[in-house]
């Protein structure tokens, strides 16, 4: 008998829960032979990539959300709507001496109640804490919008709509889209939102009155937090910088690169650039993504001593089997990246998706002459996140069925590929997309001259990417609902 606790029900945690329930078997879960408990503060699952479409009014929040409880009920998984607050990986020293997680309920009519949940295996897939507070004035509670959650995106859509109405009345507007801090990640999402806004402005017939500015922490366009991509295009080996810049020029989207947003006031964003200069830009609408941090979780040993700094990196992300030795960019290798996602010293604790602490950035880290770090953090979302969830679920299932000595499976981001599709518009004929794929996510210069496989690392623009993004929207929601044949759909 084994009890598995999964913290978080995003792409990684939910994928792990679905696969574990399939591998351990509904009968064993229902009879209590094994248990899977998913702890998430949110009642709904959110297909986050489509929040971009919610953010421009092309979709409504219910189209990207569905309740988790019925899905888990059907699969014999216990759902606890709560926020994890602490873990005790060495046990509690009480009657049930197993390791445990402390949670505080956020729903299920038990708001504020605390509970201790013992575990035999733990997956930390909590995703990010949205650190709007890192930049004064940033975020939906202050002076800018976000598309990180469906409700944030709905608010952004309403504000964008007001801006468009104002332009229809003959006014001119400046719209700023991008990153709200020098260490943000998910540049691809901001890139996608910028081109969705451009599309909406054109559809509304107000593009001429709009100044659209992409404000990013990337040192050059097309970096995407993965040090850019080199790919073959029309018989040339080219770089994503040229590819992305061409799109910006074609769509008349202005760009400010290497920027760290210092403060957002009502209608003005203040930022520092890599040359150390400080600038301000007035805006009528701003969607600026926040930097991510680990979800605040404390860790205690058996005696109640705080061991948070042993388990978690200063960023709040959980340490796993990565090589965290500080090294300069030139000495980074693909071997620095984790393979099993097992926490050091604990063969029953794993961290996947955004929750694991990366060993370093993928893009070259830069500082302004003032010492301000302006360096995109590595993306760990989407396809890699799902594969990590499934890999760790398989490792745990094998340990449960074959014994503790079962060899853990590996899914290094130095081997995994990823796709990023920045799609705008809706409908089958009127949309378009910039579709990028890369293999591997973390460049491997020993295996590939350009760091990545040129056959699978591509960038292209057209309807095809838009169709793919639309299909992925429906396919992944179908999969996440655990419907017939869900496990045949790859992560």
């Amino acid at each position, binding site marked *: 008998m084994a009890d598995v606790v999964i913290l978080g029900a995003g792409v990684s945690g939910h994928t792990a829960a679905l696969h574990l329930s399939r591998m351990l078997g509904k009968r064993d879960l229902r009879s209590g032979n094994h248990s899977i408990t998913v702890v998430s503060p949110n009642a709904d699952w959110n297909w986050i990539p489509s929040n971009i479409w919610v953010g421009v009014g092309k979709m409504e929040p219910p189209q990207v959300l569905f309740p988790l409880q019925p899905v888990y009920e059907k699969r014999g998984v216990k759902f606890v709507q709560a926020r994890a607050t602490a873990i005790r990986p060495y046990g509690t020293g009480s009657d049930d001496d197993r390791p445990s997680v402390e949670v505080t309920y956020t729903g299920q009519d038990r708001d504020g109640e605390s509970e201790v949940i013992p575990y035999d295996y733990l997956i930390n897939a909590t995703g990010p804490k949205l650190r709007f507070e890192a930049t004064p004035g940033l975020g939906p509670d202050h002076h800018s919008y976000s598309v990180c959650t469906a409700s944030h995106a709905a608010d952004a859509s309403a504000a964008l709509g007001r801006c468009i109405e104002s332009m229809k009345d003959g006014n001119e507007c400046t719209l700023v889209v991008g990153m709200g801090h020098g260490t943000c990640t998910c540049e691809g999402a901001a890139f996608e939102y910028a081109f969705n806004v451009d599309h909406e402005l054109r559809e509304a017939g107000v593009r001429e009155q709009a100044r659209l*500015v992409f404000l990013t922490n990337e040192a050059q*366009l097309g970096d995407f937090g993965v040090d850019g991509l080199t790919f073959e295009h029309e018989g040339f080996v080219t770089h994503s910088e*040229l590819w992305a*810049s*061409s799109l*910006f*020029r*074609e769509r008349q989207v*202005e*760009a*400010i*690169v290497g920027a760290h947003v210092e403060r957002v006031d009502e209608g003005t964003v*203040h930022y520092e*650039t890599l*040359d*150390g*200069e*400080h*600038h*301000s*830009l007035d805006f009528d609408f701003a969607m600026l993504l926040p930097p991510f941090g680990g979800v605040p979780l404390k860790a205690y040993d058996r005696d109640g001593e705080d061991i948070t700094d042993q388990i978690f990196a200063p960023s709040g992300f959980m340490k796993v089997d990565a090589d965290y030795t500080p090294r300069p960019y030139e000495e980074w290798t693909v071997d620095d990246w984790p393979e099993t996602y097992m926490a050091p010293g604990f063969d029953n604790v794993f961290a996947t998706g955004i929750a694991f602490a990366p060993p370093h950035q993928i893009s070259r880290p830069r500082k*302004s*002459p*003032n010492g301000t770090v302006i360096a995109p953090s590595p993306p760990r979302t989407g*396809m890699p996140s799902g*594969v990590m969830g499934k*890999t760790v679920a398989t490792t745990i299932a094998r340990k449960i069925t074959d014994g503790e000595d079962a060899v853990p*499976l*590996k*899914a*290094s981001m130095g*081997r*995994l*590929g990823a*796709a990023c599709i920045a799609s705008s518009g809706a409908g089958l*004929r009127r949309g*378009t997309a910039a*579709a990028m*794929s890369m*293999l591997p996510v973390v460049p491997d210069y020993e295996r590939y001259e350009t760091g990545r496989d040129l*056959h*699978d690392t*591509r960038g*292209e*623009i*057209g*309807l*095809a*990417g838009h*169709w*793919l993004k639309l299909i992925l929207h429906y396919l992944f929601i179908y999969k996440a609902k655990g419907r017939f044949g869900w496990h045949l759909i*790859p*992560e």
Partner: protein
Amino acid sequence: MSDETSNTTPILDMSGVPLPTARTVRARTSLFKQTMRFLALNLRLLRMVRKGHASR
């Protein structure tokens, strides 16, 4: 480097960046061409999934 706020906005100069030809822009919405690209994109993603899973 300065503590003063500059009045200029450091907009990236993209005037030298190539623009697509009219033919390239048409190809992006050509149903035939995009159907072929759609199939190619799917095959590429499936190949990536297979390679990624094979790394275990």
